[in-house]
């Protein structure tokens, strides 16, 4: 927990009211964001996102599995977030579990769409190799290395970048009519397929401090929040998921206003991420 004195609180509230935060940012301005791809060579795709002093890593691993019986035409995506104690002694032992599961649920809500699979950031049908028999199981692991607020946005950005970095081996299914359940597959070592990541949304969290709301709050600012709304928005400006955090109630009209502000802020974030992804790809190509 961040302990702030009465003076510091006053200073922070005053600054936010005047659209000038303690670190010189405006209310809706993000901290500098930098990304690095391919940080975990053992995974199919990975990325590290640094947002100010918040550092997170996302890794994507694909394994062959069987589709769920009720959804034979869909692959499976599992999202799991872990908070490393390196981010702070409060995550020691089981201390990080509550936050980890909150973050996992929040990301699942924002990335996986509705129960029927509609509106998911990742096209689940594209993961199926043979309907009802074989599909890719996508394991998305997030790790919080250093925590200074706004973890959800950073993790969503990291997952988006990692997915764009992911190469899934090309698989050819050898269909055999006789043995129904036993399909032979040929996993290619050389050919990799890229993901279509255009539909993967970003998350913008607006934190309400006093009467105003701010984007990309630091942990000091988060300690003063009354409530926060995390909105996930995709490239087409559609809302793909929403989570409210913090106990205090919000007026419905304020809520709608926050959604439209978050939508607006997301455009900038997507643009920044796109250019960073392009830069990271270029850097990786140069390196190899």
């Amino acid at each position, binding site marked *: 927990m961040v302990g702030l004195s009465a003076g510091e609180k006053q200073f922070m509230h005053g600054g936010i009211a005047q659209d000038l935060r303690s670190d010189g940012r405006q209310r809706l301005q993000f901290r500098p964001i930098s990304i690095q791809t391919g940080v975990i060579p053992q995974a199919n795709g990975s990325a590290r996102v640094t947002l100010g002093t918040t550092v997170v890593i996302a890794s994507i691993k694909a394994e062959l599995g069987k589709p769920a019986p009720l959804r034979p035409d869909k692959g499976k995506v599992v999202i799991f977030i872990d908070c490393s104690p390196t981010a702070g002694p409060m995550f020691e032992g089981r201390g990080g579990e509550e936050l980890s599961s909150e973050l996992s649920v929040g990301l699942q809500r924002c990335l996986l*769409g509705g129960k029927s699979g509609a509106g998911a950031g990742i096209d689940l049908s594209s993961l199926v190799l043979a309907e009802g028999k074989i599909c890719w199981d996508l394991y998305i692991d997030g790790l919080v290395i250093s925590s200074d607020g706004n973890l959800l946005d950073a993790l969503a950005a990291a997952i988006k970048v990692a997915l764009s970095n992911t190469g899934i081996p090309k698989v050819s299914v050898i269909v055999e009519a006789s043995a129904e359940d036993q399909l032979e597959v040929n996993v290619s070592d050389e050919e990799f397929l890229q993901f279509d990541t255009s539909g993967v949304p970003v998350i913008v969290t607006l934190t309400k401090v006093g009467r105003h709301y701010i984007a990309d709050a630091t942990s000091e600012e988060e300690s003063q929040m009354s409530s926060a709304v995390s909105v996930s928005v995709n490239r087409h400006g559609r*809302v793909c998921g929403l989570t*409210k955090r913090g106990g205090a109630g919000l007026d419905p009209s304020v809520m709608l206003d926050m959604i439209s502000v978050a939508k607006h802020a997301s455009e900038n974030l997507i643009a920044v991420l796109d250019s960073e992804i392009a830069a990271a790809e270029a850097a990786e190509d140069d390196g190899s």
Partner: protein
Amino acid sequence: MASGPLETYSPSQTLERRHQQQKRKSFNEIDWARSDGRNFHQCRPAYLRTGATSSASGSAYAEFGSTKVIVSVFGPRESKKAMMYSDVGRLNCNVSYTTFSTSTRGQGSDNKDFSSMLQKALEGAIILETFPKTTVDIFALVLESAGGDLPIIISCASLALADAGIMMYDLVSAVSLSCFGKNLVIDPTSEEEACQDGSLMIAYMPIRNEVTQFTLTGEWSTAKINEAMELCLEACSKLSNILRSCLKENVLGFTD
């Protein structure tokens, strides 16, 4: 194939699946009849009673269609010694399912996600300053799960809190809504929930005009969010009146 279900042994499984697929097809159509004969913007009838368990400080029972929930509230009692000092009260929520709550016999496990969501939905409504250093325990048990579990738990819990005499700003009522293509279906059953394209859940305090919890999944346009929120908020207000009249009945019962 040890993990997957053996299809040769259970014809019902494939039948069920075919059934499901048919159902999913029918949901994609523009108009369909809901299995319980409701129209899209009609909620299930609510049956609510307070004082379901006698040992608790307060309790409530809720029945919406075939979803049945019982919530007991204990406390306020002294916080555990290990907890840090707090000048406001704490909430401890626990949501669990009975083994017979679903059609396939389940594990009867705790639902941690629901527990934390319940806590967040209620935190904003309770005047926590009135009981410093203490904890209020809220235990919710889902006897039968048939859709819209979380909103019903939230509404029922706020009724139980009122029954326990915990100071609140307002009663919290919650309603969920499913989205199928263009259609918005309020208060979905579990069958409908399993096939929905998107969902929205609101916990609302009508008198304060404040939303305490809001979740949304699936892809939505702003106009649709507006429409869905309006529907839910109206339903919440009406549900809140039902909660209130249930409390009043209880009081009248005492005086008689």
